[in-house]
């Protein structure tokens, strides 16, 4: 292996870790919603898209093709992405949280798609199908590969910080309350818990992470268009990651994200080698492979690779 090849592998690894990390943030968000609280959010793509566009509009240089840009620092872009997602998730929560879980799934699919359609069609703000380009990558002034490595480190630090925060909250009365509502809402109500309020809180917390992930993705690929927010590569993949990794387990969520992203990106290499007449069907083939993999994982590990574990008396004492 010559040094150019080694360099290529290194860049591939950095990209795997960066993308895996961004997915891990979404997975942690879905874990708060579904894993802890039992909320079936099937509109991940919508919140991801909102976060991506907010930071894109705020941090790009002034442009005539879309709203803004306001040339603000990346940190402000990302924080705003989270804030805007929070407000929108809160409104969606007020509207839908009373629905039973299967209906919530349907409602969130619809709402997620509505967000995406709005973003696609409000050309004055988002440049429509052509998307927003030249989104700044933090650490851009560094030389390749250090800019990429810097961004990877940023993503991994964010994953780590959120992991510790969410794990701490999970083990606190907060997490216990969320899971009590997941397990039996009647009993939770009889114990004085305001089920709707708590569900909205979980929905907002999870969605904020999805918005943050969207923002990070926009900076990473420096471009955001409707294609980058496809439900297939967001909603579907994140769900598979969480279920395979272990719903209710933060480490499982992170493991699932990195593992599935590695496999997903490997299937691209694989389908890239298909003969031309099959290559058009590559996307379906990849979904099929991922679905098959999920089946195999769940056959062997019913609760995912790292299943949920409840805190025991001894751990907490």
């Amino acid at each position, binding site marked *: 292996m010559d040094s150019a090849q080694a360099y290529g592998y290194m860049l591939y690894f950095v990209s795997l870790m960066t993308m895996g990390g961004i997915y891990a943030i979404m997975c942690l968000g879905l874990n708060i919603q579904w894993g802890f609280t039992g909320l079936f959010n099937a509109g991940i793509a919508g919140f991801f898209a909102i976060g991506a566009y907010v930071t894109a509009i705020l941090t790009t240089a002034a442009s005539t093709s879309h709203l803004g840009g306001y040339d603000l620092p990346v940190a402000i872009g990302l924080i705003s992405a989270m804030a805007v997602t929070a407000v929108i998730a809160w409104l969606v929560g007020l509207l839908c949280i009373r629905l039973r879980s299967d209906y919530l799934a349907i409602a969130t699919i619809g709402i997620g798609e509505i967000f995406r359609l709005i973003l696609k069609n409000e050309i004055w703000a988002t440049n429509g199908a052509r998307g927003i380009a030249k989104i700044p990558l933090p650490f851009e002034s560094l030389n390749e590969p250090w800019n990429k490595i810097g961004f990877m480190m940023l993503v991994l630090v964010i994953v780590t910080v959120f992991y510790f925060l969410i794990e701490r909250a999970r083990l606190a*009365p*907060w997490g216990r309350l969320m899971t009590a509502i997941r397990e039996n809402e009647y*009993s*939770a109500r009889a114990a004085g818990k305001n089920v709707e309020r708590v569900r909205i809180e979980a929905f907002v917390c999870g969605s904020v992470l999805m918005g943050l992930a969207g923002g990070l993705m926009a900076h990473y690929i420096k471009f955001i268009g409707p294609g980058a927010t496809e439900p297939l590569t967001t909603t579907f993949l994140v769900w598979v990651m969480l279920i395979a990794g272990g719903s209710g387990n933060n480490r499982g969520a992170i493991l699932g994200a990195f593992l599935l992203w590695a496999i997903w990106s490997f299937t691209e290499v694989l389908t890239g080698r298909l003969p031309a007449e099959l290559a058009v069907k590559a996307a379906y083939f990849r979904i099929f492979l991922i679905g098959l993999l999920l089946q195999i994982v769940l056959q062997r590990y019913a609760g995912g690779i790292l299943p949920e574990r409840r*805190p025991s008396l001894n751990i907490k004492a």
Partner: protein
Amino acid sequence: MLTVDSISKSFGGLTAVNNCSFTIEAHSITGLIGPNGAGKTTIFNVIAGAMKPDTGGVQFQGRNITGQPAHKLFHLGIMRTFQIPQEFFAMTVLENLMVVPAAQSGENLFYALLSPGNVTVREKEVRDRAVDVLDFLRLTHVIDELAGNLSGGQKKLLELGRAMMADPDIILLDEPGAGVNPTLLGDLAEMIERLNKERHYTFCIIEHNMDMIARLCDPVIVMVEGAVLMQGDMNTVRADPRVLDAYLGGDVHGAPN
């Protein structure tokens, strides 16, 4: 303390509760008996805010609480248990109890993350209390077991345990003795008496076990077909021909053949 005033509740064409009125006096242990399907559980559901009545109202400590949501009623001092146990399935027995107490500031995300001293102190308080309750209910050996794996009787005890974790003014117990072994049943009755005397909790107990009702309850309310048939102390109730006819029949311990 608690007044049920002309409550009616139907499900489709079926009238479960039909113009039912009664009063539960403060510090009493009131029994609520009647045949299957008499509407006892439905009345509990209405009182505790799990269902809204079609007509009629509920007053509690001088305030109209009709139609208030269950979680608000808990904070006003009403705790109920379920006839069919409603445990937090995939949570441990200990957690099942620790969920219940009010005023857990650690349920707020920011307090949970910052975890200031008072959150830790409160958490320890709640845990110690839960451990005591489990000790009392003889469930200590399953403290870290998932509640969904418990036996039917153990789940029934856990229901009671959750009620003991709240600090309510009134506890509505829906068949607390069903499926519980006889020795423990005696202890249970003793505990209810003690909580009533020492902590001044008011109880309303639905039971089909007449020994338990006779031991604990005064007065006893008899419901039949959604309405109150009569009310009185256990001896009066037992001697009443209408009650014998509608519910107790002739074969109940202590009743004339």
